[in-house]
């Protein structure tokens, strides 16, 4: 019987297999940032252990960094960043600190350097590591104990998750993006729908996506509960990688491509679960609640909790409406927002900024609008293309690279009761600041919303 893509990549990385034990899996790339690593390095020091492969490890500063120039004002954030610097120096790990041209959100810089390649295993102490699966590898988030484990051994003991295919047929209509697709998928299967699975996104609409779009989709796999999401590599993948600093070159490139082409699910392979979705029926999606599964097409209205048959879903909806300050029956298009955030590892890449700029060109924003590039390189590229001028002329704020308002560990936060349209990935209670209310949207909807001050699709302008 044939094998799925996930099975092929997994098998390639099994260091040791024994009855009744998890597989010991080799890790090709370990990404590190300041938040989930300090206690792991402490653990190494306590046990007198070294980092086994500093040359397969890379660190950046992203979660705490301010997005305006200048030092970190918060002493606690500052200490955390300084701790990473000290640890990177002590253990010999390459670090891209604030101000460095390679700095950025951890999931943006891996692909940007060409370090993220098909068929690899990639981990990071961050749940959105699933992003890297867009290149056809297995990439997943881990906790601090596992970070320490990978630092010490370059391996992880793990059971292979089950496999799920999400088959996306048809074409995405114009104005409907990768973000809308993944929000629709999560709304369909629920926040627990992917638990225990590695998801492979397949089908016509997925193959048509750019690498940026594929990363947006894989990024939010975790929001459907899946540990990892992946997409088989193809010409789009190879074209994106070619010439990047860490991509193979010359003969090695040809060898690699030949191998990468074998990384696809065999025709006779069987998935443990298959979900189908028709892309051609989709329209721009927004979330109305406090988990990413609580989403609807923008054309609809805030649902009534009574419309949920399942009592758990009903009480979750009641709580969500209360927290979000929304009434059932209000058209989503009438919801007014105070802040628009374009950025994060979901939608902070160059293509996202281009599409937001296209909508803001020659228009004025009516809300506080933060445009935060996902990395310094994205920022430089955007400035080369003059996008920053478009944003500034529209009245938006053009910021330095970092996680920013995706989770508000830096000063970019919502105040209690404030409402945002955000291109990030989590609308949890208080995610963007205590008491803040978040609606997840695509960059296009974010930009259109900035113009009107209400949740708006570009087509409405």
């Amino acid at each position: 019987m044939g094998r799925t893509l996930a099975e092929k990549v997994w098998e390639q990385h099994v260091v040791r297999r024994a009855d009744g034990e998890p597989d010991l899996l080799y890790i090709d790339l370990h990404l590190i940032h300041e938040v989930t690593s300090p206690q792991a390095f402490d653990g190494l020091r306590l046990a007198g252990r070294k980092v086994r492969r500093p040359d397969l490890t890379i660190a950046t500063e992203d979660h705490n960094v301010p997005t305006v120039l200048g030092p970190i004002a918060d002493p606690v954030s500052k200490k955390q960043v300084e701790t990473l610097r000290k640890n990177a120096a002590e253990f010999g790990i390459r670090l891209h600190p604030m101000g460095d041209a390679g700095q950025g959100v951890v999931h943006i810089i891996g692909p940007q350097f060409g370090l993220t390649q098909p068929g690899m295993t990639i981990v990071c102490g961050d749940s959105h590591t699933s992003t890297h699966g867009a290149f056809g590898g297995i990439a997943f988030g881990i906790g601090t104990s596992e970070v320490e484990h990978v630092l010490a051994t370059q391996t992880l003991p793990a059971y292979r998750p089950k496999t799920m295919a999400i088959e996306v047929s048809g074409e995405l209509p114009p104005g409907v993006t990768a973000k809308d697709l993944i929000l629709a998928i999560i709304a369909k299967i629920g926040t627990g729908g992917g638990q225990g699975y590695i998801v492979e996104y397949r089908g016509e609409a997925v193959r048509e996506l750019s690498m940026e779009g594929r990363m947006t989709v894989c990024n939010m796999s975790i929001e459907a509960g899946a540990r990892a999401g992946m997409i088989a590599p193809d010409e789009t993948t190879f074209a994106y990688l070619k010439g990047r600093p860490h991509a193979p070159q010359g003969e090695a490139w040809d060898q690699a491509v030949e191998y990468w082409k074998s990384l696809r699910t065999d025709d006779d392979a069987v998935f443990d679960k298959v979900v189908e979705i028709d892309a051609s029926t989709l329209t721009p999606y927004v979330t109305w609640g406090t988990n990413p599964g609580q989403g609807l097409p923008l054309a609809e209205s805030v649902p009534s909790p009574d419309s949920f048959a399942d009592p758990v879903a009903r009480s979750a909806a009641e709580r969500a409406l209360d927290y979000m300050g929304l009434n059932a029956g209000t058209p989503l298009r009438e919801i007014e927002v105070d802040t628009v955030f374009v950025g994060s590892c979901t939608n902070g890449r160059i293509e996202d900024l281009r599409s937001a700029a296209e909508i803001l060109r020659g228009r004025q924003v009516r809300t506080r609008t933060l445009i935060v590039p996902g990395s310094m390189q994205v920022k430089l590229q955007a400035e080369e293309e003059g996008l920053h001028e478009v944003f500034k002329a529209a009245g938006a704020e053009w910021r330095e690279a970092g996680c920013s308002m995706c989770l508000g560990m830096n000063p970019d936060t919502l105040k209690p009761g404030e409402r945002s349209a955000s291109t990030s990935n989590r609308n949890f209670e208080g995610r963007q600041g205590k008491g803040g209310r978040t609606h997840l949207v695509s960059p296009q909807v974010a930009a259109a919303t900035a113009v009107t001050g209400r949740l708006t699709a570009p087509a409405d302008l």
Partner: protein
Amino acid sequence: MEAFITHTGTAVPLRRSNVDTDQIIPAVWLKQVSRTGFENGLFAAWREDPEFVLNDATYEGASILVSGPDFGTGSSREHAVWALQQYGFRVVIAARFGDIFRNNSTKMGLLPVVLPGDKAADLQSAVEANPKLEITVDLRERQVRWADEVVAFEIDDYTRWRLMEGLDDIGLTLRHADDVAVYENGRQPWLPTTV
């Protein structure tokens, strides 16, 4: 890590679903570089509400948290596990867990117990009816027991063994350092390094 074989204690019923790790420990608490002091951050936003179940003196001293489905979804922050443990919990019971949270828990010796949704809800009701109800979570037998109820739960043999022995994973893996070295020699030549 402290070994876990069996634990008897009282419980707190948390009647919520989708308890994401941002609720268990908000991001502002993640700036700490030490591994201690997270108990005050546990459910920090919810605890501001005097009605929140953790503020209910009836449940004081509880060491088992019984939640609605999808506990620990969201972020990979292990701080969520540290906060629960440092607050005094040894077991979390729910119908479904976020995968990373569940993994992190077993690395630290906090036992995540998956009970079918109606059984978890039954247990919540039993605790609400009698907050001093004694509950035994028996990892050896893979059972949760209260009053006349005996409910079996599943956990794989390896994780169970590791928890019962209180073994740290790194030490176990380092026993296989030779296998790792052999694997490393056979890696594909084009794979990138960060140098």
